[in-house]
Every structure is written in structure tokens, then in C-alpha cells.
């Protein structure tokens, strides 16, 4: 990964391209690369859909190698949803293929003067940027079908559906899985709208003639990879729970804990929870001839995904994840898995973030647009309104905050304009701290359970002190940022959290690949550096301490069944970024 591809969509005479040396980015990846480039090159006060914003795409540090779990792709830009910096990542095949093509990053800048729609084809010899107006307003599944006829089944595809072209703030960028389904999405923050603003419909990566990226120390890399895979396989979460039930294994437990936000965060328990749980979902998938265990990219050994077939045994969508099952399920009072799977498919096809879309529909339900629990109504809203770009669809497709304003709803679960994910912060106060303070807006992956006890980020935490919540959240955010920068799937967090030897194996892999010695301290330093840059970007974009807050109703409305409110004080939240 020694080069960066820079494409100026607004160059006079049509899009131009330039290959630059990757420099410091050749040994970086994922969120580190995207955020550093955005922080350096994008004016923080620019309009997210304007020519000055840039869409930066980066594979992980070990993407394109034989290293396991290394296929996350990161997309960065200024977010049209939050107005701050954004990194959104996804699985699928593009990271592996892009890395084998040798690109550490692709930077798409400028904006075409005409209304032409473009596709970008990248192979080992050249980059071809061409107008293809026949793709206008196509959605992801038919789009990829059409592109496959032209570019074949060896390629990996990134694309936007009609929502991206319509520049909806919930628009995602789809990445194809090993079966060439556009089912993996850089979902959060409206990155699809930025791609739409650049008038790029699809990027096609073809690595024919390329080989795996070679480590500096082959033997050491192989041995470390083996130990790393062993660690992942032997852990109860990554070796058993996730492969068997996927992330939706969480529904029952969150519901039991009274932390499952139900009907737009009104209570913490959904009576229909068992009907849409991961356990019920996996059983249904198996009965219908689908799969309860499936990898979103080659080289994934956890395989938390699956294949969801319809009643006739035909592919409907990939296994909906926990957040999707929640946003379209309990959040909307819907307890029917077939409805949720259909909504997952529609979201992927139209190209919108499943969390933002589901939360927006729940807010619309609260505003009286349709009733809570109206399955048909929810499908109609996504398919016929968002999918067709009607005025109502454009309101919903611009996210929960916009929907709340349009329908006069005073309970709108967003931070920095981004919808909260599937965990009520009143029940798990520490995650509320992360939602409030993350540079990304409310984000469940921002402060993941990553090895804080091993890394000792910021020192040991006394869990009994109230300020421990802030300290834990800070440590988690630093460590998560670092893992996001490696481009590894976050689900490696568990074997790493519990098994120091697996964490060491990951460091050894990175060290053997790049011929350097990596320590836990290096990882922490990287995480801090990236977070600091992101924070500074947001400050220059106009964010202050008052934006690091949860919506007030979390402080004032007790959540049943525990009847608790969010009690972490504002002054404590303000301490989060105080690190040396």
C-alpha cells in the first residue's frame, strides 16, 4: 500500500486523477488514515455536500494480507448528518481487493459541474473514470447485478443507492460480500450522501493479477496469525456465541437487563423480545435453508453474519444485525422477524443506515405518522417514501433529528444529530458517556470493550467511583480508535480483552508485517492522536462542550423497569478529553 489515488471530480474538462506516494500512510490504515487526511485537508466549516468536502477511503493495516479478520474498510469525510468529522467502516470484500491493488487511500474531492453520474474502475494497470447515466437512481442490488455483467464476478464493488444520489443524510455506502451482494454498509453519518454529492455511483475494484501483500517477516507473521486465529476460535464470544447467533444474541439480554429501548426509548423492556431474538432468528434461518453462520469477507474466522431466507426459502437479506433488529423491531414496537428482514433488505437496497432509518421511523411513529407496531406501514415508509424520494421520504431519509423536527416530537434520541443505537444509556451509564462525548455522534462502537485492562490506558480505574464511568469511557474510546485504525473487525475485542496472548499475537502480526516492534503503548498513542485530531476538527466546525450531551429526557424521564435516569454530571462529561 504505497500509493494514494486522488481523484478531483471537479477538474475542468472532467474528473482528473493523480497517484501520490503514500508516505506516512503506507504503514497506517482504517480510521487513522481517513481521519488524518480529513483533518488535514477538509476545511472544518465547509458544507458537507460541497466541493470542499472530501471522501477518503482506506483499507486496514493488514487488509490484503493472509491475516485473519483484516477486511474492514473505512470511509471518512465531514458528515452531512452530524456536521462533524466522520469515520464509518464496513466489512465485505473491497478492503482486501483495494489493499492488494496497492492503495493506502483513495481521496475523492471536488464536485462535477455537470449533472453526469460517474463510475470508477480500478485495476492493477489503470484507473478509469467514466460517465454512466444509465445507472441514475438505481438501487444497490439491481445496480451491482448490472455492473457485474460488465466487470465480472472477480471484482469487489462499493456503491450508493438512490438515497445517496438524493443526498439523504442517512445514506450509506454499500460494499459487496463474497457472494457479491451489496449487503455490508458504511452506514453511519451519511457518507453515502457525500459520495452522491461527488456524483460517484460506484467504485469497482479488480485485483486480477495481484497477489497477497507480503510481510517483511513471513515466518513470524504466519506464526502470529496462527496464534491470533487460535485465540479467536477458543474464546466463548468469538468462537461460539457470535458464530451461532450473530450480534442479535444481545436482544434477550438487553431486554432482561431492562436496557432495551422500546417504542422510542419509552421503556427498557419489549414484550416481543423473544420473537425477534438472535436465538429465534438463527433457528428460523436454519429451518428455511439459510445460514446462521457466515463471513462478510474472506478471511473472517468469527463469521457473525448469516443468510436470511424468506418463507419460500429464497434469499431475502443477510442476517440482520442486533442494531437493525432493534431499530426496526423493538424501537418501533414490531415483533415480526420477516418484517425486520424486509426492512433490512430495503435499507441495503436503497442505501440507508439501518440504525438511522429505524430510529427515524420510530420517531415518526411517536409523531403520529403511523402507529407503533405497524409492520406494513414501516415497510411502506421505507419502500414507497424513502425509496421513491417523496417529500416524506426525504424527511425520514435525513434521519431521526430531521424527522423529529418535521413532526413536532420532543423525544428525539440523537447526539450531534446522529441517532442513538440499541442500548439505553440510563441502564448502562458508561455507554451514555460514550454516546455523549464521541467525536462521531452517538455511536455504540465508539467505546468498545477493547483491552483497557491490558492496555491500562490512562491508568487503572476504580470502578466504584462515579468518575470511573468517564474514565472507562475515555479509555475505551482511545483503545477503540486504535483498533479501528488497524482495520480489524471490532469483534476481535473479546479474545483480546480476555486473553493477553491473543493481543500480543495481534501486535506480533503488525510488527512482523511492517518489520517494526509494536507495543501496547504505540497502540494507545495512535488512538489518542487520532481522537485528538477528530476532536480539534469538530471544535473548528463549531462544536463545544454543550454538544457533548445526551438529550435532556434521559436525565428527566425515569426508565422502567429500573426507573433510573442518566446521572453522570455535565462537568464529569467535560473531563473526558482531559488527558496528557
Amino acid at each position, binding site marked *: 500500500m504505497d500509493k494514494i489515488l486522488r481523484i478531483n471530480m471537479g477538474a475542468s474538462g472532467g474528473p482528473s486523477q493523480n497517484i501520490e506516494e503514500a508516505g506516512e500512510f503506507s504503514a497506517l490504515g482504517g480510521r487513522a488514515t481517513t481521519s488524518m487526511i480529513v483533518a488535514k485537508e477538509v476545511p472544518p466549516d465547509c458544507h458537507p455536500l460541497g466541493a470542499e468536502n472530501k471522501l477518503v477511503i482506506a483499507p486496514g493495516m493488514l487488509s490484503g494480507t493472509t491475516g485473519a479478520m483484516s477486511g474492514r474498510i473505512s470511509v471518512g469525510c465531514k458528515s452531512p448528518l452530524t456536521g462533524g468529522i466522520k469515520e464509518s467502516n464496513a466489512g465485505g470484500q473491497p478492503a482486501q481487493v483495494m489493499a492488494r491493488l496497492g492503495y493506502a487511500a483513495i481521496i475523492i474531492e471536488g464536485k462535477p459541474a455537470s449533472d453526469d453520474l460517474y463510475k470508477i474502475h480500478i485495476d492493477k494497470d489503470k484507473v478509469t473514470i467514466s460517465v454512466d447515466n444509465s445507472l441514475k437512481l438505481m438501487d444497490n442490488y439491481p445496480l451491482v447485478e448490472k455492473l457485474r455483467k460488465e466487470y465480472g464476478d472477480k471484482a469487489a464493488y462499493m456503491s450508493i443507492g438512490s438515497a445517496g444520489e438524493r443526498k439523504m443524510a442517512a445514506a450509506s455506502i454499500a460494499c459487496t460480500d463474497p457472494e457479491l451482494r451489496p449487503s455490508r454498509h458504511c452506514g453511519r453519518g451519511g457518507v453515502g450522501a457525500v459520495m452522491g454529492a461527488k456524483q460517484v455511483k460506484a467504485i469497482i475494484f479488480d485485483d486480477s493479477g495481484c497477489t497477497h501483500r507480503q510481510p517483511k517477516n513471513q515466518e513470524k507473521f504466519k506464526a502470529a496469525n496462527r496464534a491470533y486465529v487460535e485465540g479467536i476460535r477458543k474464546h466463548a464470544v468469538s468462537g461460539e456465541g457470535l458464530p*451461532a447467533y450473530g450480534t442479535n444474541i444481545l436482544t434477550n439480554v438487553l431486554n432482561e437487563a431492562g436496557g432495551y429501548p422500546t417504542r422510542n426509548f419509552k421503556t427498557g423492556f419489549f414484550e416481543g423480545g423473544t420473537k425477534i431474538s438472535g436465538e429465534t432468528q438463527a433457528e428460523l434461518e436454519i429451518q428455511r435453508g439459510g445460514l446462521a453462520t457466515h463471513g462478510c469477507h474472506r478471511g473472517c474466522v468469527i463469521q457473525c453474519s448469516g443468510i436470511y431466507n424468506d418463507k419460500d426459502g429464497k434469499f431475502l437479506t443477510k442476517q440482520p444485525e442486533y442494531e437493525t433488529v432493534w431499530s426496526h423491531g423493538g424501537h418501533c414496537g414490531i415483533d415480526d422477524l420477516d418484517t425486520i428482514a424486509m426492512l433490512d433488505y430495503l435499507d441495503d437496497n436503497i442505501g440507508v443506515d439501518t440504525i438511522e432509518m429505524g430510529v427515524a421511523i420510530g420517531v415518526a411513529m411517536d409523531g403520529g405518522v403511523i402507529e407503533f407496531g405497524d409492520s406494513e406501514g414501516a415497510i411502506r415508509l421505507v419502500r414507497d417514501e424513502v425509496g421513491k424520494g417523496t417529500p416524506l421520504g426525504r424527511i425520514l431519509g435525513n434521519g431521526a433529528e430531521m424527522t423529529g423536527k418535521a413532526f413536532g416530537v420532543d423525544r428525539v434520541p440523537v447526539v450531534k444529530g446522529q441517532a442513538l443505537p440499541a442500548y439505553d444509556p440510563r441502564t448502562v451509564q458508561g455507554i451514555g458517556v460514550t454516546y455523549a462525548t464521541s467525536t462521531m455522534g452517538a455511536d455504540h462502537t465508539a467505546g468498545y470493550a477493547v483491552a483497557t485492562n491490558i492496555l491500562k490506558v490512562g491508568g487503572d480505574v476504580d470502578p466504584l467511583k462515579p468518575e470511573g464511568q468517564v474514565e472507562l469511557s475515555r479509555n475505551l474510546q482511545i483503545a477503540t480508535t486504535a483498533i479501528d485504525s488497524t482495520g480489524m473487525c471490532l469483534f476481535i475485542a473479546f479474545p483480546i480483552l480476555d486473553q493477553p496472548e491473543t493481543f500480543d499475537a495481534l501486535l506480533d502480526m503488525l510488527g512482523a508485517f511492517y518489520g517494526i516492534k509494536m507495543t501496547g503503548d504505540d497502540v494507545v498513542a495512535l488512538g489518542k492522536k487520532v481522537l485528538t485530531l477528530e476532536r480539534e476538527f469538530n471544535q473548528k466546525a463549531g462544536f463545544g462542550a454543550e454538544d457533548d450531551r445526551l438529550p435532556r429526557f434521559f436525565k428527566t424521564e425515569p426508565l422502567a423497569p429500573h426507573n433510573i435516569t442518566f446521572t453522570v454530571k455535565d462537568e464529569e462529561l467535560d473531563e473526558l478529553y482531559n488527558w496528557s
Partner: protein
Amino acid sequence: MIPERKPGRSAGAPVFFNRKLTMPTAVDLQVQLNLDSELISAFYLLLQKGVRLPVATGCSVIKLLNDQLGIAEAYVLNRITTLFLDGKPVDDLTSSVIDNGSVLALSAALPGLVGSTMRRGGHLAAMREAISYHPPQAVTTGSGTVTIKLFNIPMKEIGPLLVERGVVLTGSELMTLVADGGARFQKGCDSVTLNGRSSPCAEFTEQLPTIMAPQQTALVKVRWNEAVSQRTGVPPAEGAS
């Protein structure tokens, strides 16, 4: 009293069902279903929602699981890493107390930040301190009913054995079980024994609405046509003959 298992049936029993469970019952009916082991999946929804068991109350969670339900301590400690007592995450199995009407949910380790915070005694337990379980000041012993909910891995591993031991179901739960199982249930059900009298499955399911009112209770036991340990893949008890 539930009859003890016949000696031959315990041969392949997994390590965690190593003790006898005796239940004082106050149920309206005793039902034994003779089922194909494939039909365990028909119980999954019920097991997630929770099944009731008559137990001695006033004991700790570990005592309930270990002494009363016969689940080996090593299994509890290693596999059941997330527990909720009355909706509250449990950190200490010895100080948490089972009361009449308690609801105990059992789960394996979970992904995600929140999954991790829920883990028993985990490093991130402080993040959910507001809902954590704290033991009562005073404990009274007696007998009563506990609802056990089984999620994910414990559902698959303990579930078959729990229903083999016997659980209390209402008429409406039993009817839902039979109705949801549909043709699969009819095919996989060899026979049913009702209060000691055996009848073909079809006859039982047809007559069920007249045998039991929705709110009546039955102690339902399942006899699987294949050793459950074979089905769950859990190794047999050490020293089991």
C-alpha cells in the same frame, strides 16, 4: 413427586446434571411427552421466555443451580458468565438469593460493550452499577417457584435437560408449544403420558383444549428418543457409567 430417572437413562447425562432433583409440585396435571430429539427447537421460545420450576427458596443462585438443579459448579462458572436475577445483573453467585417468584436468566458471554458490562464480575461492571443486583438484608427459607430463562448457549446445552427433568407450563403455553410445532411436532412425538395414562400424540393434541384450561398448570417432562448429551454435544459426566 417427580419420579427419579430410570438408571439406564443417566448413562450419557452431561456433567452438569449430576444430582437428583425432587420437586414438590402443586400442579393440575402431569404430562410426559415422548419426543424426537430434533424437537428441542420447539421449546426454544418457551425457554427464552422462561419456564417455572418448584424449588426450595432462600438459597443462593449457586446453590440453586448446583444443589437443586444439579448443574455442575464448573459449568456454571465457565459457561454461564452472564446472569440476571429479577432483571439485575448478578456479580456474586453466593450472595444472591432466590426467593419465591424470582426470575433467573442464564446466558453465556456476550459481544459488544454492553455485553461485556453485563458479564458477571467483569472489568466493566461499573458501567451498569445503577442496575446491578444487591443482596437483601434478610433471607427467609421455604419453598416456592422460580422462573428460569435460558438464552443462547445455555439454552442449547441446559434446555433439553431441564425439560427432561420437568417444567411447569400453563395450558396456554402447552397449547402454543403444540400449535407452533405444527406437523413437525406431530411427526416427532411418539406418544404422550397424561397422569400415568399413555395415548397417541394426535389424540392428546386434539383433546388438549378440553383437558386443560389455559390457566391450569401441568408438570411437563420430556423423554427424548436419543441421549440428550449426544444432541447437545456436551461431554458425559466424569465417571458416568
